[in-house]
């Protein structure tokens, strides 16, 4: 394996402790990459300082694409290519199309969101997932620190993590 990324992994066994540890570790100038927890913790993402997710914007754009595609399809087939009179209405019978347009919008949004989620979490086929510690899906709270983005030495960071309440600190390489 061509190792390029080296991580320090702090393991905590209490959600309050990890929440306080995030502020403490950050306060000492260590850059935290991510915290993995078995369940959502209120206020954790603000404590880490993650920027707000942009997925709603993506959803809106996917929706807009769906709306346009649905309108294009119906207009092309029903008005331009093969106009037919249905129920005595105009060829361009907008009210009739609203359900289809709605469905198209929802479909594109749903699929778009799922694919965006996969891509942003590196979950494409053939990709080996980065698993820092399997216990993060059970009862442990995992804080990961990317050594590539931190200037402090490994020993220093390990000491800071231990001081903040980590029960163990492991090294992980991918």
């Amino acid at each position, binding site marked *: 394996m061509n190792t390029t990324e080296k991580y320090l992994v702090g393991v905590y066994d209490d959600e309050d402790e990890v929440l306080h540890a995030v502020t403490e570790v950050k306060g000492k100038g260590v850059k935290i990459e991510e915290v993995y927890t078995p369940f959502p913790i*209120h206020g954790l993402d603000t404590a880490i300082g993650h920027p707000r997710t942009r997925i709603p914007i993506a959803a809106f754009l996917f929706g807009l694409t769906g709306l346009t595609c649905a309108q294009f399809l119906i207009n092309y087939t029903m008005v331009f290519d093969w106009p037919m009179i249905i129920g005595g209405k105009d060829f361009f019978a907008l009210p*009739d199309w*609203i359900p289809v347009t709605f469905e198209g919008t929802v479909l594109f949004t749903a699929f778009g969101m799922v694919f965006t989620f996969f891509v942003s979490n590196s979950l494409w086929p053939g990709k080996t997932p980065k698993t820092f510690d399997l216990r993060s899906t059970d009862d442990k709270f995992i804080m990961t620190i990317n050594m590539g983005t931190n200037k402090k030495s490994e020993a220093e960071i390990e000491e800071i993590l231990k001081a903040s309440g980590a029960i163990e600190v492991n090294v992980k390489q991918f």
Partner: protein
Amino acid sequence: MAGHSHFSPANVEEFYEFTPEARKRVITAMIIGAVLLGIGVFFLGSGEHEAAHAVAGHAAEHGGEHLSGGAVSHHETSWNPLNRLWVNLWMNGVFFSGIAVIGMFFVAVQYLAKAGWSSVVKRIPEAFPKFLYFTFPVLLLLFVFKGDVIFHWMHHGITDPASEHYDKIIAGKKGYLNFTFFLVRLVAIFTVWIVLWNMMRKKSIEEDLNGGTQNFFDMVRIGTGFVVAMGISSSLSAWDWVMSIDTHWFSTMFGWYMFSSWHVTGLATITLTVLFLKDKGYMQYVSDSHLHDLGKFMFAFSIFWTYVWFAQFLLIYYANMPEETIYFLERWEGHNKVYKAVEILNVFMNFFFPFLIMMTRDAKRTPIFLKICCFFVIVGHYLDFYQMIMPGTVGPHGGFGLVEFGSVILFASAFVYVVSTELTKASLVAKNHPFLEESLHHDI
């Protein structure tokens, strides 16, 4: 709102004070409304003749075609300008009864779901149904004395085969639409609403004094009962008070349609009241997370209204049956097109506006956006009720004049006065609500 960490239910009981200045302002508004209404009524008599002639001429040009599913076309000759006043009072009575009862509905749903987040704001909607005490007599008196102005089916001789006004379709609906049964339903609906609200309110205030969880479980039971009662009464009131105006026409979606209109207006009124109280320095423990939830409610139910409104329209449009399409045709092209602008505004103000404005998370957490949206939703649904009721009652004699503005100002200020008075009667925070602690830490 970092301040709420110091707030504990044990040490705060916050009372709203309806100050003399505020009281004076509301009463002034009420007087302005009444004066406008008076002037409007005075001018109704004088200005109406010309308009009526113009309309009659117009109708003659078109070979006397009638685009009316309602009452007006049937007694064109006996039009009394004062009718517009009675119809306006009826419309505002129905609209504001809805806002008032949605207060109770909101609380009932929160208890039924055993929701925690809403316990800091629940005292606001809880005060709304007090206004039912005022709209009930208004609707009752209007129905008893002026019912024939509002309802086509109450016209003299309409169910009598010997009369020249005999209408076979309406005579067929006599079993449901008759004076006695309608009166019984009207009284029963209001009685159920008011009695259940009184039970809920009593338990809620008792909880402040006694604590414990017994009151909470009692309120869950009352809330459950109310939701069931509302399921029936909301449809009954929609059919009776609004749909029976256009007696020939009917829609199976109408109960939901009117309820959804009431519901979103009620939610907007709750949000607006919370925001105003917050601006006045009350309820500082209501965080932007609570506002976010109220905003989501308003956003979602605006879409729900659109869904029901559009579903009703699409079925009628698609089936294209004359006895059904007349309802929309009357509003779109009938009566000199007086109602066309309202129809367009209806969809823009009640769907596109809240949908696009309230879509982002930030908008739902920003008071000014919420306020603008609440204002548009309330005005928009006033217009929705306007276009439900006016074409079938006043028809070509309708419009927006002093009568409309005066009566809505009168009702709105009376609503503010009554609800403000009711708010002073209990602490703004239900301090012994079992979920209060959860609500104070609400974070989304």
